[in-house]
């Protein structure tokens, strides 16, 4: 590759895949409609046939498709994960994104010609860990945990010889991904076990005198005044009490917008920028991808960070945003 930043965009459905490609994505990532991928929501994702069609469509438009098989295979029943990996390779996926050693090992042994990317779910954040995955499985790219600062990413890139991909926009996991069991603790299903966090079937909105309580498996995750916009009760984004304080203990209800950091991320040696949101609609994806396409092209033409930031400012959806861990102060 020429060294220009690659824009990696989410697709939860074939329609969104087409929308993302048409909006200027260099690559689209998506998963099969089962528990082999970490966005296993009802009605979302691809059948094997849809995946094959999606890849054909993307390739026809000069875009790549990265297939996420990034949950952890079930003990005694690892076949669905192996099958998903086989199907992805047969469909002509440009890469498989995996976290589980079982999946990585299977890919390395059975499909050595298909590129392997290490999922953020593997939480590999040090040169030793990344080097290990590169050596053992031939991993070519690592999706960086969303806990590293730009300085740390730069240092990391100097110490490793695989590509790095960094999240720049969308939902923000405040916990180290792939190592969080909060959801299964409360609701019995978790990202690692089932590919879901704060599963919708355990969500309830209960109205009472004080307004609306958003609950997950009976645990109150947040409360809203009558008429106040409600949010989805994602565990780590709720309001709780600790000590003598009550509030957003883990993270404010913000989303990540690292638009202002694109120039710095490029300077830090990052290969690809990733937009989160496989559960989001095609209208949203189109808008975000289009804006980031313009921004990335401007970065490549040498525009300054303030200009880039301005190009992405309209994407706030009225919600609050943060540059996350890329600025060290986040911690």
């Amino acid at each position, binding site marked *: 590759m020429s060294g220009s930043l690659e824009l990696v965009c989410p697709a939860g459905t074939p329609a*969104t895949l087409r929308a993302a490609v048409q909006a200027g994505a260099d690559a689209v990532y998506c998963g099969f409609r089962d528990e082999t991928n970490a966005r296993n929501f*009802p*009605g979302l994702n691809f059948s094997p046939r849809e995946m094959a069609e999606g890849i054909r469509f993307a390739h026809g438009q000069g875009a790549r498709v990265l297939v996420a098989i990034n949950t952890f295979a079930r003990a005694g029943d690892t076949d669905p994960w192996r099958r998903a990996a086989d199907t992805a390779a047969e469909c002509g996926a440009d890469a498989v994104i995996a976290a589980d050693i079982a999946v990585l090992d299977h890919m390395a042994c059975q499909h050595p010609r298909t590129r392997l990317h290490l999922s953020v779910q593997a939480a590999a954040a040090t040169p030793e860990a990344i080097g290990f995955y590169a050596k053992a499985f031939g991993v070519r790219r690592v999706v960086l945990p969303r806990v590293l600062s730009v300085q740390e990413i730069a240092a990391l890139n100097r110490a490793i010889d695989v590509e790095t991909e960094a999240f720049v926009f969308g939902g923000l996991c405040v916990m180290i991904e792939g190592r969080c069991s909060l959801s299964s603790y409360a609701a019995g299903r978790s990202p690692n076990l089932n590919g879901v966090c704060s599963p919708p079937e355990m*969500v309830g909105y209960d109205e009472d005198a004080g307004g609306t309580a958003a609950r997950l498996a009976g645990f109150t995750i947040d409360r809203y005044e009558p008429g106040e916009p409600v949010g989805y009760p994602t565990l780590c984004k709720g309001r709780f009490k600790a000590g003598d304080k009550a509030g957003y203990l883990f993270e404010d209800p913000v989303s990540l917008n690292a638009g202002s950091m694109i120039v710095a991320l490029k300077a830090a040696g990052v290969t690809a920028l990733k937009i989160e949101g496989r559960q989001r*609609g095609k209208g*949203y994806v189109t808008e975000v991808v*289009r804006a980031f396409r313009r921004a990335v092209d401007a970065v490549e033409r040498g525009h300054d960070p303030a200009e880039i930031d301005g190009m992405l400012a309209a994407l706030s959806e009225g919600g609050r945003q943060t540059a996350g861990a890329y600025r060290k102060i986040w911690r």
Partner: protein
Amino acid sequence: MVTGNEGGSLPVFAQRLLPPFAGLPLGPLLTQSLRSLARRRPGLFERLGEHGTARYLIDPTDLPFAFCVVPDGTASRVRVTGKGGAEPCDVVIRGPILMLLGILDGTLDGDALFFHRTISVSGRTEAVVALRNAIEDAELRPSDLLGLRGTLARFADAGILGGLSAVRHLAAGAPAREDGRA
């Protein structure tokens, strides 16, 4: 949950344009449309999985009736019901008709509407999520739902979508979607 007039209820003049339906022919008509859609595009309903047999009560707040929908492929059923709420159902989706139609044709993001309370949703959240994602991928046009084809379909889509978009902007007092600020 009551939704005010902000955010896109039908203006009074537009409400007057709708005939005061008793609802009798509408149920079978929509049932027929949905089943024919299922025959033409089975993949759309597969996406719903187990939630295809769920009962969705779609309640347009600015119409005098509601719909009970079971989106079960070629066995789909749509019934027009009253507003009483006595109907047993798994999910209730309530909102101004233009907003509901906006989700259907994909110009409005269901997540955003849901969380801004223009549309209220109650019942089995996973069934709502499945329906939203299925609709999201369907890229439905009015002609799909009405079972129209050819010139008639193009005519209907242009007329209905164009009209919808115009009325929606009138109602919401919002700029056009094309400038990226829906």
